């Protein structure tokens, strides 16, 4: 009788173990729960750049258990709107937020609230003054400026006068890019004089300034423009004269106007960010953070140098002429 009980006990235990294994295995298979992410942009009117950031972020959710929604302020300068929006999102308690801060001072306290609410936060493209976030994914502006300096340096021969057309004096990105460029110049041509003009994000201001320089016959051995608006303005100014006298010119960012000038030869090189990669990386980093993995607090998604010769390379054409993968190529007409 004792033997029988022993047998029963052994088999019973075996069975219990088995059932446990089965349950655990099934549980493990379904364990990855759905997480919700809110992407908070500066504006609901997505420029081409932001469209790419978004499609990159969406690509990042592939094969992951993620639901997402995209919100934004009225326009790029609607800081109050974004603050109100963020407060609403915090109440909603999503698992993670991807945020492009519209103002690095005023948004900063909100990032603390987000982190305090236990929400994972990844900043994309535009950061804040503090460090209340899990990761900041952007183009390293200093490096972009430095790259612009190196590329312009290749086009010049012992320059004496180099002009920087920058966007807004005191803006974080402007300062960083400018510093990068200056450092590259110092390294290459220490003797060159560098003049700086702030166009305050106005094409006409940049155009007027550069046109005046040319018309006054001031010697310019090279020009760098450090954002899209400044680049187009500068190119507009150089365009009438470029066949007569070409000024080495390196611009930044990517737009259809810039591409035309690049094809025409007014712009020699463009330093182009990788918004798709930026969006993809920020989503990937956020997912890692939500899963509890350690993430880098700063990620540089880099920039690319585009010239007339390489702009239609298989790799670059997709960067310059992005298409939305679900809807086909964007008509850039």
């Amino acid at each position, binding site marked *: 009788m004792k033997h029988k009980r022993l047998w029963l006990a052994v088999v019973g235990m075996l069975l219990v173990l088995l059932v446990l294994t089965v349950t655990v*295995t099934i549980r493990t298979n379904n364990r990855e729960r759905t997480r919700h992410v809110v992407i908070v942009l500066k504006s609901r009117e997505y420029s081409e750049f932001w469209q790419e950031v978004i499609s990159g972020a969406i690509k990042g959710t592939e094969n992951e258990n993620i639901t997402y929604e995209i919100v934004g302020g009225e326009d790029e300068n609607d800081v109050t709107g974004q603050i109100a929006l963020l407060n609403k999102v915090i109440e909603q308690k999503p698992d993670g937020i991807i945020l492009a801060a519209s103002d690095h001072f005023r948004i900063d306290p909100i990032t603390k609230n987000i982190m305090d609410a236990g929400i994972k936060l990844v900043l994309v493209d535009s950061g804040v003054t503090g460090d209340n976030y899990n990761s900041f994914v952007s183009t390293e502006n200093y490096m972009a400026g430095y790259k612009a300096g190196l590329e312009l340096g290749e086009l010049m021969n012992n320059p004496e006068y180099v002009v920087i057309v920058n966007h807004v004096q005191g803006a974080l990105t402007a300062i960083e890019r400018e510093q990068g460029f200056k450092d590259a110049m110092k390294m290459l041509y220490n003797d060159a004089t560098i003049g700086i003009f702030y166009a305050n994000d106005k094409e006409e201001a940049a155009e007027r300034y550069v046109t005046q320089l040319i018309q006054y016959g001031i010697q310019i051995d090279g020009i760098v423009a450090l954002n899209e608006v400044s680049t187009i303005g500068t190119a507009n100014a150089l365009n009438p004269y470029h066949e007569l006298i070409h000024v080495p010119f390196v611009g930044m960012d990517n737009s259809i106007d810039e591409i035309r000038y690049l094809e025409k030869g007014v712009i020699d090189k463009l330093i182009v960010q990788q918004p798709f990669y930026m969006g*993809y990386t920020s989503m990937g980093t956020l997912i890692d953070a939500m899963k509890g993995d350690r993430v880098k607090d700063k990620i540089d998604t880099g920039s690319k140098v585009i010239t007339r010769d390489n702009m239609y390379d298989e790799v670059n054409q*997709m960067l310059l002429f992005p298409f939305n993968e679900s809807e086909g190529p964007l008509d850039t007409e």
Partner: protein
Amino acid sequence: MKHLKWYQRFKSIQSSMVFAFVFLITFIVITSSTISLIFARQSARDSAVAYTEQIIEQISNNIEYYVREMDNVARGLTFSLDVIEYFEGDTDIGTKNRVKLQMEKLLTGREDIIAASLFGYNQDVISYQDKELNPYVNITDSKWYKGAVVFSGKPYVTASYVQNIYQGSYPWVVSMSSEFKNLEGDKSLGVLVIDMNYKIINDICNKVTLGDKGYVYIIDGNGAIVWHPSQKLINTGIYDEVVEDMILLDDGNYEFTQNDEQKIYTMTTSSLTGWRIIGVTYEDELVKNQSRMALLFIGVAAISILVSFVISSVIAATLSKPIKKLRKSMVKVQGGNLEEVVEIENNNEIGELSHTFNAMTRDIRSLIEANNKEQKLKRQSELKALQAQINPHFLYNTLDSIIWMSMADKKEEVVEMTSSLAKLFRLSINRGKEMIPIADEVSHVEHYLTIQKYRYSDKLTYSIELDDKLRHVTTLKLLLQPVVENAIYHGLKYKEGGGHIALNIYQENEQVVMKINDNGVGMTPEQLDNIFETKESSKGSGVGVLNVYERLKLYYGDEAGMTYNSTLGIGTTVTIYFPVRMEVTGDEA
């Protein structure tokens, strides 16, 4: 000890039966599950690959169908007389308009066609919808142009790219280009390029699902990516795709590990476009189904093992129960209980065994009974024979003495002797009973002594002492008389002067002790040793002490006995002892 060992061994038969059953079934279940899993895995893989092949074949067909349609459009232009005429040098404005009209006819309403242009080697260009050309682009650098020239008349299909030849627009397209010739076909006149909206390819490929993670991608014959769901990631360098290897391989299935994932690549080549359409499925998705299947098998295995355990326990118990019963009965029989009968429950081997055992027990029982009966019978007949032995000799002598006394006219003595003889015989016969009260036995020997006293005149004296408690205690009859006779004939007869016999009967412990003491001649040690061997050969009364001894032993067994004590010239003492047994049948006359 032996009992426990048997029990344990018995138990282990049952356990080992259960163990054997469970082991066997576990083995079978695991083996068959494993084999099924292997086959299931193979067939899952096969069907996944077959499905992928079907899908990519479908995509290839769709693309070829579309390209063929484009080719028809292209032929409508390249074989048009107006086109040939115009590019052969007929610069008539009317011809040009007819070409434009033809283009309108062929292309209007087709949203999938973004642009079409005829580039003559004579530098003349006719564009559908008169699109402005991009002044900064040299068309001879374009892939479609070079391809068409190389293909010389056959249609050339590009990979996906950004078309930059038209002013102000940079659409994503797949172009088909072909060189057109004069009527004789010996002179190339120019190149036709038709730009197809890339969306078409995108739509064809994007709808495809291969499992949760699987996908399709297309590369052209040079390894340029035509379509890939993660093309931007590939360009950024954070995603790798197998491209170069696929160009070198033929259509079929290949396994690659890529981005740390096992994938199955299935490729088909479109002969019309030279494109390679590749379907990718993930090994771990197959394995996912696999593990679900494995879980099912484990469950089934667990249940069958449990069921087999229960069933085998029941079977083992049913089989071992009759064995257990049989064993119990055997132990009882071993302990002496021959009445034990094993119940027979079924007719299997154990039933037969039980049956045989029962028969054996029965046989032993009847053998023992027969033996007992035989023994009893033998004893009775012997007893009767012995009792019958006593009489004749003594009777002659006594009757002789009576005759002599009658002749001597000793009337009173004759009466007493005759009366004693009569009583002696009555007691001797005593209704054939073996057992009599000691009182009767004593009076029997007293009658005998009376007779002998008369026969030997005053040469014999005797004394009898009987414990009154023992009067009703039973004894085997004719114990004393033969001993007394022996004492007279062998001890006193040869003695000078008178002899005396002292009879003393008393109880010692639970034994009756009868002491017969004579003061006769006694015996030598040799005689003493041979006392029980005198047997029938000796004359005298015939009923020897041996007879007494044997009867004692026969009736009482080891509890009774008889000893001789004798000293030559002094006398002999015979001691008879046997257990005290009260008379059962009451008083005796």
